[in-house]
């Protein structure tokens, strides 16, 4: 099926099978920040925004995204870098595989609620798994970002 995807503001014509998901389409188109993790919408590493809403791209049919606005980490790199600097300062990242998904969730949260408290942040990030850390570093970094970085 022929679809037009609006990815980070640019239009892409694409021919997708009815069961193809955005995770595969985006990676084929070169958006490699979108990672494949559990493939069951349980881990958060493939999170992207569709029309501003956070969704797992592994469960979002490409044909369903026709003419809709898709945002990947590549499209919000400046905002992600600002938050990422705090992640680096706290030594949060080990393998870094989950970080794009974490960033997309955080950006979605700050778009919805510019001044969340840390409990709201933890609740919002509960769907993002990290297999290296115990999440403490992420939470410290985000608190530091909210305290001074924003």
């Amino acid at each position, binding site marked *: 099926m022929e679809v037009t995807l609006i990815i980070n503001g640019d239009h892409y014509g694409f021919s997708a099978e009815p*069961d193809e998901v955005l995770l595969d389409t985006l990676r084929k188109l070169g958006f490699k920040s979108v990672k494949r993790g559990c493939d069951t919408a349980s881990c958060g590493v493939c999170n992207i925004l569709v029309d501003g809403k956070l969704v*797992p791209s592994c469960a979002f*049919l490409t044909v*369903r995204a026709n003419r809709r606005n898709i945002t990947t980490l590549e499209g919000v790199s400046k905002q992600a870098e600002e938050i990422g600097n705090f992640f680096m300062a706290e030594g949060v990242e080990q393998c870094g595989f989950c970080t794009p998904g974490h960033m997309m969730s955080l950006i979605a949260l700050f778009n919805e609620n510019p001044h969340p408290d840390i409990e709201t942040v933890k609740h919002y*990030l509960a769907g993002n798994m990290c297999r290296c850390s115990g999440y403490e570093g992420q939470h410290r970094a985000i608190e530091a970002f909210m305290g001074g970085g924003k």
Partner: protein
Amino acid sequence: MRITRYIQPNDLNEAYERLVETKGAVIMAGGMFLRLQHRTLPLVIDLGHLGLDGISSAGGLVTIGAMTPLRCLETSQDLPDILKKGTRQVAGVAVRNMATVGGSIMGRYPFSDVACCLLALDAKLKFHYHGEMTLQSFLDHGLEGEDILLEVFFEMPEASDYKSFRKTYTDFPTVAVGVVKRESYTVAIGARPGRAKKWTYDEMNRQTLALEAFEFSSDRRASAEYRKQLAAALLEDIMEGGM
């Protein structure tokens, strides 16, 4: 999941006709569980363009469209506490932005937090072809033939609460308890691990905590006895919270 054909009708009658005339056709709501099935679907009918989402409230009656995502239930100001609390730990926000009320009901999933809450609320369902029926009746007997769920509705309660026990924050519930207060108290228990059941009490007291009306069974998450004790503890917490 493999899909042979996918359509996104703009008209409800068309969606229904395609559903009944095509052998093996399925409705897609959030698509989150449909996608996990290991089978080939000859026709997927996406309800996304039918305007079946939204929450409204008039004269004490609350109506939730079948395509309303669970995240809207969590954040809405117009819904009773039970639905906010009952949806906030369903996976992560990304899942709750896609998974719908309709998908949660139509799957008749025994673990469903949403079905447990709506059962406690004595909710009714409105289908395109079958018309209205109680959620209880649908959970007990299902439907004869195919249909499209349009909305779910219930009377706004005086008070309500919900608690579940989960091994991790976003895990499926090991057991869940919802309570709704009107003239009497309706207690619904989900993930027993069978489908949610409800019972109505004139008042809540030590005798209610015996949970005589409910059956529990064992599975790999928990034994029947453990579940029963957990459910009683959750119910006691809800009572101590002022219900």
